[in-house]
Structure formats: C-alpha cells, structure tokens
C-alpha cells in the first residue's frame, strides 16, 4: 500500500514520531554515503587548486536539505547533517571525529536558513538558502582546523602578511564565497531530488 506522505504535513504536532526518526535514518545514511563519496570528488578536483572548493564542498552540506525536505519539521536540517557526519566518522573517512564538528556547525547554519523562512518553505529556494548559510558553518570549523592557513589574520601573523605572496584575508573571503555558492547549488539540487521522489 502506498501511503500519502503529504498528509503527514497536516499533523498538528511538530514533535518527532517514529516515522520522522526513520526518515532521519534514511536521510542520514544517504547523506553519509554522499559525504563519503565527496572525499573522492574533492581529491579529484584538487588538481584545479582553489577552484576545486566551489565544485565540491557543497556536497558535504546536503544532509541538511535531504532531511529537511523529507521531514519538514524544525530541527530536521540540523539533525540530518549531524547524523550524516556521525555515520561518516564511524564508516570512517579521513576527517575522523572532526567531521562531527563540521556536521554540527554546517547543520546548525542550514537550520538557520529554514528558520529564517519560518519553517514554511521546504523547496529548492529554501534548500539553496540553507546550503549557502551552511557554508558559514564550514568556514567556522575550518578556521580552527586550518588555523595555520588563516592565522595571519590575527596580530601574530600581521607582519608575515606583508611579505607573503597572497594575503590570507583574501583566502578567507574566497573560502567563504566558494562555500556559499557551492552550498547554494548543491542545496538546491538535493532539495529538488528529494522533492521529486518523495511520496
């Protein structure tokens, strides 16, 4: 029997039921597989240097859009991305447990996107917005992890900046813009894909 998924949206409660958690599981494993594959995409694109980032980083944000588009409840974007990241860490990938930090921050900022829209839109526009914002979360986690790249932004490195070939602040700006563009594109694609299969 095919059950009408649409009718679920009319449920008065926004608390999670077993169905929501099961759908979260579905989104979590699909996201984890995408995250896992994204490492290879990332490596393949690394031959393009900095141009590789906008082409692939957004793949790591899609756990939010898959979960949100499926579950359509507050918290789904955050939980979906976090769950995907936890599974990715267990699978494992070379990011190790730090993946979870990425997941939490990316998921948190993606959640903000859906929240800004009042949790009323779950379409590709919302997906694009959430994806773009997730790019900020990625940057925050990267500021810690890749501290050696960005450090010149602080006082410690100011003198170095003047002698370096490229300014680290330029790296920061590029990093953020690349994240947001990539996140918006992959976010829209992920939302669209889920929308067209969701029953």
């Amino acid at each position, binding site marked *: 029997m095919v059950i009408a998924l649409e009718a679920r949206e009319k449920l008065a409660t926004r608390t999670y039921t077993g169905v929501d958690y099961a759908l979260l599981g579905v989104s979590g494993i699909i996201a984890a597989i995408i995250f896992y594959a994204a490492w290879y995409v990332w490596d393949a694109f690394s031959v393009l240097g900095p141009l590789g980032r906008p082409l692939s980083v957004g793949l790591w944000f899609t756990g939010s859009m898959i979960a949100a588009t499926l579950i359509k409840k507050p918290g789904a974007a955050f939980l979906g991305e976090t769950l995907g990241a936890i599974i990715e860490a267990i699978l494992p990938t070379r990011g190790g447990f730090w993946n979870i930090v990425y997941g939490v921050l990316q998921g948190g900022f993606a959640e903000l996107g859906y929240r800004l829209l009042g949790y009323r839109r779950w379409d590709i526009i919302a997906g694009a917005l959430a994806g773009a914002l997730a790019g900020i979360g990625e940057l925050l986690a990267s500021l810690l992890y890749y501290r050696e790249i960005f450090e010149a932004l602080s006082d410690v490195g100011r003198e170095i900046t003047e002698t370096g070939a490229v300014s680290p602040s330029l790296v920061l700006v590029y990093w953020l813009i690349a994240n947001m563009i990539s996140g918006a594109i992959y976010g829209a694609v992920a939302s669209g*894909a889920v929308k067209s*299969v969701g029953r």
Partner: protein
Amino acid sequence: MDELLKASIDEAGYPNKPVLSDISIEVHNSERVMVVGSSGSGKTTLLLSVTGVIPHLLGGIVRGYSRIAGVNPLDIKGFRLIPKFTGFVLQDPDKQVAMPTPLDEVAFTLENLGWSEGEAYKRALQYLKRFGLDGYELRWVEDLSGGQKRRLTLAASLVHEPILLFLDEPTASIDPWGLADIRNFIRGLGEKGVVIIEHKARYFLDLVDRVIALSNGRIAGVWDRGDIDESVLKRVRELGADVGEYVFRERIRDAGEIVLEAQGLKVGYKGGFALSVEDFYVRRGEVVALVGPNGGGKTTLLKTLAGIIKPFEGEIRTKGTRFYMPQHPDYMFLFNSVGREVEEVKKATGVDITSLGPEFSWVSRVLDRSPYKLSHGQRRWLAFGIAMGYNASLYLLDEPTTGMDVRLYSSLGRLLERISSRAGVVVATHDIRVIAEYTDRVYMVSDGKAWEADREYVVRLLDKAWRG
C-alpha cells in the same frame, strides 16, 4: 480479558480521501480473524485505523471507536500503551526490520518495554533459537535469506508475549516454504488473538475462525467458523481479490531458436555459496521459470544468466542482447520525469513507449510526472515499457509479480505473451500461479544445484509445500 479487539469505525482515511466507512471488527481470546479483499479495498487502512496509526502518525482521520484490550489507541496515551500487548508483522521484512542485527531487532521490542539489557538479550536469544535463527544473532540482517528475515519479524513480534497479533499480508514476499512457517506460527499461537490481513484467502482458510471481506472500504461479507468453506473463496474472488488460486494450463508453443545456452556452469558470489548447473537453455518464444526456496540462489543464477555476475566456471553462449529487470520497478528509472524516460528510450532504441499498445496508453497522460510518484502498478508497467523498448532477444525478470493485484496480474499474462512472441523469457519466481499459468518450462534451483523439472510436478510440489 476476553475481548482483545473491539472496533467500529464510522469513517477513516485522509483529508478529502475517506477510505473506510462503517466497519466493525471484534477479536476474542484465541480467535483468528482474517480480513480479505482486493488491493485498495481498505485492508491495510483498517489495520492502521484501529491501532491509531492513521491519526497519530500519518495525519489522517479516524471517526469511531476502538479498544485494544480495553485501551483506546485513538487517544495518544492509549496509542503509546498498545505495544505492550500487541505484536505486528508487516508485509515486507525490509520495510519492518529496523536494527542492523537479528539480536538487536528482537531485543528492540523488549528494550522499548523497559527490559534490562541482560534480560532482553537473554530472551531475544531464546526466541531467535526458537525461530531457527541461532548462529545468525550478530550477522547483518542483510545476510539473511527472505525466509529467515520473515522468521525474524515473527520472532520480534512475539518476543514480548503479546495477547493480540496483527499480520499484514505476511505472504506478500515469501516462498511456499516460508508460508508453511507462517502457518505453523499461527497454529502455535494458542490463546492469543490474531488478525490476518490477506488477499490470498486460500492460504489461511483452514486456520481461521472468522473471515471479514472488504470491498471499497466497506464490509462485503462476514463468515464464521461453520460457514467457512471454498464458497468463501468464490465470493471473495468476485470482489476482485486474488485468493491465491491458480489454473494449471497446458502449454504447447512453437519455440524458436536457442537464445541462451550454458553447460557445466558454476555460479555464485566470491566467498559465498556456489550453484552448479549442468545444462540450461532458453529458446525464443518460451517462458522459463527458475523456482526454489528463498536463499537458494535463484536471483544469483538469474543475474549470471543476464551477464551481470561472471560464472566461476563454464560459459554462457547467447544470441542477441539480454535485458535484466529487477524485482523493484523503481530501479529501472534514471530520470525524474516520465517524459524524459520516454524520450531517452526513444533516443536509445527508436521505440516510443506510448505507442507500445493499449497497456501503455496512460503513459502519454503523465509525461510531466516523476516516475517515482506513479502508482505501484503504473511504475511496474512503465518499467516493462522501458524494457520492451530495448527489444532484447532474452528478458530476465526477477519476481515480477511482487505486490501485484489481480488486474495487474492478468495483464502481466498478456504482456509476457507479447514479449515471449519475439524473445525468450526467464522468470525467477516462487509464485505458483505464474508457473502454472504463464510458463513453458521450469528449472528447480535448490541445494546447490539447478535442474530442469517437470512443470506439473513442480506446481504440485509447491502447492504441497505451503500446507506445511
């Protein structure tokens, strides 16, 4: 408590889409009640209504009354209590089993009810053993055969000793041997009340105390113990349900040239079991069945014949192209609109699916829909259309009747007839009807071997197997 289930539903369904009206059902201690009807008659909705799933999980509406052991599941508090004394077995184990290992799956029920870890594992192990799953406790569930997965769902539904059991089309994805397991399971339930939702009424007729027939969401007939005989089947069949009966058809057809031939074949997965096939062939114009218990290697053999898996030994000689169709139609779609699928098939093969015949006329009306949003029947048909477009000289179908109702099933016959007029067809199936009605020859696949067997003998063997 004598009355385990008492429900009278005035109306149930989804907003603007009522499914059930004026239904009442009662189940007492040690009573087995079977609800029959065609697909779309509201059988599963009935199960989801009286247990409160429709209002609490699916956003639907139930107006009426329901008590399970005196508890009202239409109220959220009652809904949360009923797991304590009810057990559920759903259609497809892959849509029910939630945990990665059999041990955790069975223990899950107990953990939810507050059992301590040690006690839960102890009891779960006992029940796994009772259902023949010892040695599999910590395997991935995916390593189990279809029949074992079914037994796992039975163990998990019974482990907390519920007083009322719901079985929703337990025969849907099971071979005749698995069916025998389910029948034994029902026989051994003693005092418990049982509700079986099933369209293949024939398989449980001798085990139940009452039969309730549904049609278009209403009760179309009720029979009690004394009145239950073969005439019930006739009545249910008139309502459009497949009761599981078959007609053995003699088939004398002119088969053409051999399109696939293999001798001394050894097939299997690396590190897994192996299956040896001494002699196998398919001719253009015939439908050949691969038959055997779940986990016996039917699908592996089918995929080897299709060229997807390489055989360990031996060679497969083919004439023309082969096309493999998986069990689930969704696997066949590569694009997110029906129109794109039609276009791509046309581009690849020159064949327009919409002009394949009357069975496909509806396709042109849904070109802008996503194939995944079609009904199950439409998805199945679109998948067939795509396959037919490729005009292969051999088609290999994995369990094509899964989830089909009577109407779909009878048009499947016409479709097979059409496909096999130009090509050879191999069908992996455990559906007695398909073997008796649509196939020309049969290979048995069991105990590490595959051999050609007499068709009538196989049909009789399968028909005896399910009785247990």
